[in-house]
């Protein structure tokens, strides 16, 4: 009997959950068309990255010395590079690198930051003081410098780049989430949770973290754009993803020095891809912040 009701409630909530998401998406599109445009570009990027094998006209790694430095044409829409590789295919595959590095580093960075921020707010006192000073220390370095330090210590490679981008994200997210956590700490339901004998870990993970979802999501989307830009910068500086992996920053690097005048398409298209994706994430992030911020919400 009880099991039946449990199943019934579950399927009921599952259905309304789906319906709810479609409704939320529609509402968001109507209220914030710019954010929806950003979301659309992100979705296209995601599709390009996942379906890269199907939609890219050429293999991104195959060199074709018969077709080097060709201008955009019907055969090569975005032209070819100095090794005869198709620029469009490399941009499509580059979306994989950009999104993989972007998503994993911002997700891990924001999550770690959120946990540190909430824990710091929850414990307060000396713990808070020490953690916050350490975060301030990390914040005193510019984003790119800290990332450079991490790469310099760990070496290049995709995983190390993810780590390098993640590290400067942590204190930024921790700072924002902590301030939400501080006001959360004062709410009676946290006292009630303590009066029910819950342990610190249970209170932090189950009761406080779900309540800071709004700032967490905002930081996450804000980081995504930055992370893609940072990955491109590191690759451009030769400290990021290594050749021959298709990556936008890497393509710029190969193009910028020698071919900027003779074959501008080699630099223009990956540059456009970087700008467009960062722009899309920022648009979406801004709209998301407005939508989630109760102070700006007009009901």
């Amino acid at each position, binding site marked *: 009997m*009880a099991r039946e009701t449990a199943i019934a*409630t579950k399927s*009921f909530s599952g259905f309304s959950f789906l319906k709810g998401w479609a409704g939320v998406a529609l509402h968001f599109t109507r209220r914030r068309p710019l954010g929806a445009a950003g979301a659309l570009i992100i979705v296209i990027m995601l599709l390009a990255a996942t379906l890269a094998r199907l939609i890219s006209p050429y293999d991104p790694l195959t060199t074709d010395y018969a077709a080097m430095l060709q201008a955009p044409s019907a055969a090569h829409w975005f032209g070819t590079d100095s090794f005869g590789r198709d620029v469009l295919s490399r941009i499509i595959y580059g979306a994989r690198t950009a999104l993989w590095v972007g998503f994993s580093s911002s997700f891990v960075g924001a999550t770690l930051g959120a946990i540190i921020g909430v824990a710091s707010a929850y414990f307060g006192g000396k713990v808070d003081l020490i953690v916050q000073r350490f975060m301030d220390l990390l914040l005193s370095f510019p984003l790119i410098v800290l990332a450079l330090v991490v790469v310099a210590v760990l070496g290049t490679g995709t995983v190390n780049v993810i780590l390098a981008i993640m590290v400067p994200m942590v204190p930024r997210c921790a700072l924002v989430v902590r301030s939400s956590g501080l006001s959360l700490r004062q709410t009676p*339901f946290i*006292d009630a949770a303590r009066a*029910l*004998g*819950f342990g610190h870990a249970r209170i932090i993970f189950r009761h406080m973290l779900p*309540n800071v979802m709004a700032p967490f999501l905002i930081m996450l989307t804000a980081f995504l754009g930055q992370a893609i830009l940072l990955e491109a910068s590191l690759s451009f500086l030769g400290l990021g993803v290594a050749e021959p992996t298709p990556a936008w920053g890497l393509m710029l690097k190969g193009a910028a020095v020698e071919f900027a005048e003779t074959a501008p398409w080699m630099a223009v298209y990956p540059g456009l891809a970087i700008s467009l994706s960062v722009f899309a994430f920022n648009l979406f992030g801004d709209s998301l912040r407005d939508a989630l911020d109760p102070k700006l919400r007009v009901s």
Partner: protein
Amino acid sequence: MLARLCKINFVATLLEVRDLRTHFHTSQGIVRAVDGVSFDIKEGETAALVGESGCGKTMTALSVMRLVPKPQGSIVGGEIHFQGRDLLRLTEQEMREIRGAEIAMIFQEPMTSLNPVLTIGRQITETLEAHERLSRDTPEARALELLRLVGIPDANRRLSDYPHRLSGGMRQRIMIAIALSCNPKLILADEPTTALDVTIQAQILELMRELSRKFGVAMMIITHNLGVVARYADRVHVMYAGKVIESAGARDIYQNPRHPYTLGLLHSVPRLDQPRKAKLDPIEGQPPDLWNLPQGCSFSPRCKFVIERCKREVPPLRDIGAGHRSACWVAETLSQGKVSSS
């Protein structure tokens, strides 16, 4: 025969608070929020802790739970025996096992005491899970049973609802369900009905009384509402400026108050059994600042029966017969007749 009689009349003491002292360090100095409080709660008994705002009622309850806000506040002395163990000597881990499982607490603000992002069902099962009380039924079944117990209509649907869809009274019922979930021995209810409508107040109190009788749970109701005390409490402890100043059975305290402050409280409540034109008789003056208490009895500056001794010596809480205790030098000579003639 005698032994058997004794056994029947003997009800074990569940909670025994002795000379509890909880101090706060503030910029104005040390605030003695709880200043030598002693009282007992017997098994299954409903006790009321009465007093005006800031007299230390809530801090007494939080001290029992060992949840005094740190680092400003700390329990500096006394003993709290619960089922024979001194709670003040337990480790934090041992204390955590008692909170929620043996002693539960219901808070004043039902609107904000539930986590807004977790479903009702989740919040009830969470407590069961934390205390590993899941052996008999599935947690969902137990949650459903608890919701029915506290009179939530359509309990099935409510399990997957979020708190914002419930009214204040319903939320307080949920809080009661959560408090009851692990079958505690004692429930501390900190002004459980203050934030609710008058009509809902009675419902909630009635529910609490019914459930406490059904499951033999002892309760400590913290309130400033003497009407609540009269109807629902077995025993009353009146607090003033961090001290218990009078302790007696509920009926006794109404018919025969033995402390000028209690007398004043009773005279400042409108009553239906008095002539309509009878004037209320409020207590003059303000409660003292807790960081700057007067010498002698804290109530002496406002007291109508003050004698020279009150301003020099603090009166101890002493037995004045039949389980009635009062902290007043002139307790024996006080009577209600005297207050109306004065």
